[in-house]
């Protein structure tokens, strides 16, 4: 059947040789290569659970009176968006499982992309000829964050309304065009026209997922065209790829990973509560609650908004609102550095060659140290994003935390830079592995042409060694 089917397809499309090649595509093995796959599989789960959710969710701000099974809300005036999400969660069988799995998958999706980005960055995988794929990946991360934000803004619960108020203020803070831009998207002043819900809905279920799907296809196609990178090792050169063949050695591993990701996501969705919007209540602009925590990937932005001193300059009658610094400039600088990095590194190092062998972080102390400093610069405000929880849990006064974190925001990155740089350079220069210690032996060529370990400090007799087994770095295939 396979034989006939393939022939039939080949006679009509000529893809036969490509299929044969695909079966033999070599996948270099390294656990860090799986991070991107986890992101891909989370995306598949997001699409499947998301389609299910659209069968029940009503993207409308039209209000009705709640008469569902959740008694604290009985008789409350709620929007269709909020009411249908509560109904989906509490009165639709398996509805809550799918909704929570969708939310967990979004968190894992963005976490996996972020870790994947760090792997790509710290191993130099973005170097020529892979700059395009790196830029596509960064764009997908940006879109994924937006997508996640729109997703948890849709149910019109208290948490999502407060998040949207902040998003509106951040949009308003953009110099010159901010007010027009915000009024354009919201259809007027916040909370805006009812159409804002439909706009966010179509962006969340069609526009961004469509673009993401397209970019994923291009991302994977480019990987296939260029083949995977690989770490240096016996027989692994710039000009070849050594790895498990796609079928069946690798494919089964990857299918296994898909099911593992799915299992974890559905287990989380069933067992670990997330975003219980019926407890939060519906949103009204005059309602607020303490201890608000956004999804994790927004933490660095809420933290930056909190850490920024109340600097709101008015120059020549025009104001740069405070949320601009933490909500617009900070993420733009962070992503800006990441976007230009491949070209910046090329320009500084003058290295225009193609690279298919990955570097270990220590092999490029400058890049690793700058990356670690940038990461620190993002993590400090991330901590500030949960300062109120730290206050509740550890009783550390909030203003004191703000003082310390403000200082750390600017002092810690240089410290991390120097530390990382020193450690990397030391590791690179000595090739010492701190966790394993020195595992090598010193041998010297004897005048007769053999090899021997020289006498130790105690003057013992040299012992002749057998030929060394193939080493990590000096071997041949």
């Amino acid at each position: 059947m396979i034989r006939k089917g393939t022939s039939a397809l080949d006679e009509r499309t000529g893809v036969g040789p490509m299929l044969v090649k695909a079966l033999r595509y070599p996948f270099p093995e390294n656990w860090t290569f799986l991070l991107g796959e986890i992101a891909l599989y989370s995306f598949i789960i997001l699409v499947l659970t998301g389609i299910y959710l659209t069968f029940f969710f009503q993207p409308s701000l039209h209000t009705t009176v709640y008469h569902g099974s959740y008694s604290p809300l009985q008789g409350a005036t709620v929007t269709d968006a909020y009411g249908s999400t509560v109904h989906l969660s509490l009165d639709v069988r398996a509805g809550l499982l799918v909704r929570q799995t969708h939310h967990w998958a979004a968190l894992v999706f963005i976490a996996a992309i972020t870790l994947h980005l760090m792997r790509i960055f710290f191993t130099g995988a973005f170097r020529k000829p892979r700059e395009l794929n790196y830029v596509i990946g960064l764009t997908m991360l940006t879109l994924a964050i937006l997508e996640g934000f729109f997703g948890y803004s849709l149910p019109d619960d208290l948490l999502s309304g407060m998040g949207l108020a902040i998003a509106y203020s951040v949009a308003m803070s953009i110099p010159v065009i901010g007010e027009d831009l915000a009024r354009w998207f919201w259809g007027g002043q916040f909370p805006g026209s009812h159409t804002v819900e439909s706009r966010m809905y179509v962006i969340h279920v069609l526009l961004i997922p469509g673009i993401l799907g397209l970019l994923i296809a291009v991302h994977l196609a480019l990987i296939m065209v260029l083949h995977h990178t690989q770490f240096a090792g016996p027989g692994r050169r710039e000009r070849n790829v050594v790895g498990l063949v796609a079928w069946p050695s690798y494919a089964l591993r990857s299918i296994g990973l898909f099911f593992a990701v799915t299992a974890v996501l559905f287990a989380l969705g069933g067992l670990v509560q997330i975003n219980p919007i019926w407890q939060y209540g519906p949103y009204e602009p005059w309602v607020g609650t303490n201890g608000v925590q956004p999804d994790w990937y927004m933490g660095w932005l809420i933290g930056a908004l909190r850490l920024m001193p109340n600097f709101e300059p008015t120059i020549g009658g025009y104001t740069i609102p405070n949320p601009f610094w933490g909500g617009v400039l900070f993420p733009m600088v962070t992503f800006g550095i990441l976007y230009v990095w491949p070209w910046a590194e090329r320009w500084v190092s003058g290295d225009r060659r193609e690279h298919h062998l990955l570097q270990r972080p220590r092999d490029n102390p400058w890049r690793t140290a700058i990356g670690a400093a940038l990461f620190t610069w993002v993590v400090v405000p991330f901590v500030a994003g949960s300062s109120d929880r730290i206050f509740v849990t550890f009783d550390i006064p909030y203003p004191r935390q703000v003082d310390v974190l403000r200082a750390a925001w600017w002092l810690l990155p240089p410290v991390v830079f120097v530390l990382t740089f020193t450690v990397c350079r030391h590791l690179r220069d000595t090739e010492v592995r701190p966790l394993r210690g020195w595992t090598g032996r010193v041998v010297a060529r004897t005048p007769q042409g053999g090899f021997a370990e020289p006498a130790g400090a105690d003057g013992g007799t040299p012992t002749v060694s057998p030929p060394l087994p193939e080493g990590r770095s000096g071997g041949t295939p």
Partner: protein
Amino acid sequence: MGWPRRVAAGLAAVVIRRRAEAAVEQSAEPDSPEIVVERVAPSTPRRELVVAVLLFAAALGFAAFAAAYGLSASTQVLGASLGIGLGLVAAACVVAAKLVVVQETIAEPRPPIRHPGVGERVEGGLGQIGEGIDRRRLLGLAATTAVAGLGAAAVVPMLSAAEGVGGGTGSSPWRAGTALVDEHGAPIRPEDVIVGSFATAFPKGSDPRELGSPVVVVAVDPSMIRPPRGREGWDVNGILAFSKICTHAGCAVAMLRYPLYQPSEPGPALVCPCHYSTFDVLRGAAVEFGPAGRPLPQLPLRLAADGSLEAAGPMSGPVGPAWWGVSRA
């Protein structure tokens, strides 16, 4: 005991045959001289049995999920049964991948990706559009103009999205004489506002959802109020009103910090729960801590003829988060 082994053996035979066929076809391809570095067939009957057992167990997990759904079981049971089923499939795949199917590592030369001279050829090909044409620049200009016009025509309808509901940015419906009412439309009287607590009030007859509408009404000891210049007498016996929308990022200023012991604790302040901007109630809601750049706009209060609270004038400034032109509003 016998048949699963036979099925597995049959499957393995199919797999191996297919592999062999692929290898034959592959060797016929002259441009991909791959080298097989390592090729092992590690399967044992016991391993195959493990995979089969895991897959059967997974089917049980899925059946349990379906049964739980039929019995309207809790979300926890649904998630656990589905997770166990999927986890067992994952385990079966990994065992099969690492211990059963053929393990084959190959080394393949990287496909070349550069094609010398391709730039010139594309340039030459595209350049043929100008062949035999005299007024190239004119046509180029005309085409560019048409494309620019089309772009503008495509973008212009998007401007309709700005519908303009909810009044001007920063505006507020409060005027002198507007009554303060609660969520249900009942007037707010001074005795409704308890010292150390706050009430939320709305302008009578206006949309409560408009950002300029909600105000927070606080009662303090009148002798402690240190109003900014020009705002003397904006309180009614220590009752003050400020916009409830934070001037930083638009959240509702929903917390009041009120000192339990006046002499040693900081004075009363309104706090926004989003980024903890803190506004000094006694000094016209001046920013005492946090990122807000402006005080909360204040609403002057007076007593209406019926003894309830009403606005003595408009808000002291634009309401809500700042924008480029906020100082001109």
